């Protein structure tokens, strides 16, 4: 849950001033540093997807989706919801695979590699 929240927050905030592909680095690094009991893939995926959803809607609502509707048509999709879906899925895949990679790397070399006492939880 911490991992999810951290990726969500950092991806969202960095979205205002850093390149989009940093979402991958964020997922990777955070999943490497933060241990999670759940699935790193889903934590990272849903977090980036949600961050992207929020960033897209922040722009698209005041625009009444006129541009998203046009771009949807460009991709032969029925309306803006579908192009938003594609955007969110792309974000999800990037977030998911990067977080998964981070956690798997952690398993190989990272701080979580040594088994921790149960009390550490």
């Amino acid at each position, binding site marked *: 849950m911490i991992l999810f929240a951290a990726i969500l927050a950092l991806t969202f905030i960095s*979205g205002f001033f850093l390149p989009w592909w940093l979402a991958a680095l964020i997922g990777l690094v955070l999943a490497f540093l933060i241990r999670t009991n759940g699935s790193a893939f889903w934590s990272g995926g849903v977090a980036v997807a949600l961050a*992207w959803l929020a*960033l897209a809607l922040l722009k698209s609502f*005041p625009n009444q989706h*006129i*541009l998203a509707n*046009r771009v949807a048509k460009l991709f032969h999709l029925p309306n803006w919801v579908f192009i938003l879906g594609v955007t969110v899925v792309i974000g999800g895949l*990037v977030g998911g695979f990067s977080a*998964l990679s981070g956690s798997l790397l952690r398993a190989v070399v990272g701080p979580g590699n040594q088994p921790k006492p149960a009390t550490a939880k």
Partner: protein
Amino acid sequence: MKLLKASLSLAITVALLWALQTKFGDIPVLGNLLNPVSGFWQNAESKNAKINDELSLPGLQGAVTIQFDERRIPHIFAGNDHDLYYAQGYITARDRLWQMDIQTRSASGRLAEVIGDKALETDRYNRRMGMVYGAENTLRGIMKDPVMKQVIEAYTDGVNVYIKSLAPKDYPIEYKLLDYKPELWKPINCAFLLKLMSQTLAGGSDQFAMTNTLNKFGASIVKDLFPDYPMFESPIIPAGTKWNFKPVAIPQPSKSFLAQTSDVNTRQKVEGIGSNNWAISGSKSASGYPILANDPHLNLSYPSIWYQAQLSAPGVNVYGVSLPGAPGIVIGYNQKISWGVTNVDASVLDWYQIKFKDAAKTEYWYNNRWNKVTRRIEVIGIRGKKPLYDTVLYTHHGPVVYESADKKTEDAPDNIPVGNALRWVAHDESDEFKTFYLLNRGSNYNDYREALKYYTAPAQNFIFADADKDIAITPNGKFPLKYKEQGKFIMDGSDPGNDWHGFIPYEQNPTVKNPAQGYLSSANQSSTDPTYPYYINWHFGGYERGKRINDRLAAMQNATVDSLRILQTDDYSIGAQDVLPTLLRYVDATKLDAPQTDALKTVSVWNKHFAANAIGATIFDLWWRKFYELTWDKAFSDKKEPLAAPSRDRTEKLLLKEPASKWFDDKQTPAIETAGDIVNKAFIAAIDQLIREHGDQGQDWEWGRIKRMSVTHLTRQAAFSSGNFISGGTGSTVNALIGGHGPSWRMVVQLGPQVKGYGILPGGESGNPGSFYYDDMLPTWKDGKLDELLYLQSADEKSSRIKSTLKLKGK
């Protein structure tokens, strides 16, 4: 095992990121386009723009105030000329940056740099036509003029300050779609826009086709079928106007021309491309002051071709439309004067057959000796590939566009003759922006005449009206001084008698002021009646729109802005008026089946208006086209080389006055056909086709449903275009909407103590498909209505129509 899993996952992540940022063929780069951080979502403009904004920009000398009205048209108030054009450049770039970029890329043969191989042939063609050579010459002309140099440089600085302020997320969406970056603006780009206009309006030629026709049919047939003056005409300078100047010596036809015509396209010109303008004097208007109207027709596109603006600084306060990428107002008005333009179909582009000494092509024969060929290397960048080095040969005439057949690839335009040099007025040094600079500041007829002196190309009919109650019109530009029919055919490039013999003196360009009839107009038809001493061209646009405008203006009394607005959307067909009664008389109704009889009834009672719901218009249009094809196609189509076909006017003459002409006879039948036979055959063919394609006569036959009309984005993407819409009018009616072509700006200006302007664009001010101002004017334009234009007297004049304010100051 853990290591393998981690490596695999990492590899997938890297591959995903790579794929999302890599261009595959024509597909946009998905990650870059769709991500919400810097992709297209960032181009979604908010409905709630900032009401008051302030920016500090480097290079501004003083403060500039820009008021935006409800269409987001900028009203720019600056303290001096420098800041005015700087701000115009800045604001235009903010709304139209990609359009400016792609149009100058197109003109300068640099499309392949960003879209790759598929634009290579277009680039090669533009380079070989000398577009860059011409722009360099024009830029030299501009830079020699200290005033215009400052204007161009200030405009350029304004554009560049805007470009430098952009982060990748701010780039117009088209950059994201095509995956490239804006580059800094250069003064020569302004010149490229002029070249693009020249190419569109004065870059076509039919000499190759005419020469083939001459060779196939001989001089007497060509003389008969391609006359130098039409049967029907309503010239721009009213017939009978006296020429109050002493003409300079008219050149003699060259020996080689006489030999060629004693019986021995670039793009093809398309019928119906043109524009309208007119002015009525106070004697015809309700207010007692002149009213002026203009609607320039072009291929309608998004972003809109024109950008509306008000430009105000000490000494100037002008409103109108500008070309995105060029300083000043091209069509508009100020407190005292108003002006507009339509194209003059002047003969300003000629082909010269070149004889090279040998295969090396280093020398060519001219004036009885060998002359040096110069070489210009065009470097054409191609996305993802090595640049192409293309060498173009130049003679004193100009570039040899395709010196040999192997240089002319399959995609090259048909109407460019191989082995010919091009002489084109758009290659000459010029300073056209000066004309607009002066008109923007003009206050009377003399200022108008002075401004026109600086204009070279593309030649335009400059209509004029002012608050002193003067009206005037001048077909204006640099017109080569020619012998009659010089350049009607390809010329012998070795004969100095075929060179242009200088130019018609500016003050002797046809012009008329305050004619007794109380109105003036132009619609691309013949500039003058045949008494004008100089040769401008042997053919012009059809007379139909001009005739209709003149008929209506002649009948008008107490006219208002609305009278002229209604005339702009008039769809009455002079073509139908001229030939339909004769066509109908020839029809043998006894030979028609039931659907054909119904169609005949419909077209007989049709009121000759190309209204959107008129079925008669559809029938007449196709009937005439079939008649034309049946008359000429057999003789004038040739698979091997382009031939010119006779004009609509000549065909009408054949129908009306020469019904027994040999051209009506089908040589494959024993009988001798005459006009009547062809009329009947054409009618039946037309109706059969309509039934085949659209079923029985009904709603699907309505003109507005048959005709295609849309406003298309420059990328041709349907998603950014208007889509097909129903509309009235056709190429030969005043409301000339056909095939995506039509009025790119409609304007009506009431002169008087307080000038009042009205206008509308088929689109909007913004070039951003994600803006509310991208196409907000289209519905009004489609309805044939105009907006009342907001013409502010000062930066702080109050108006409820001002929706936001931007203040600029120096840094």
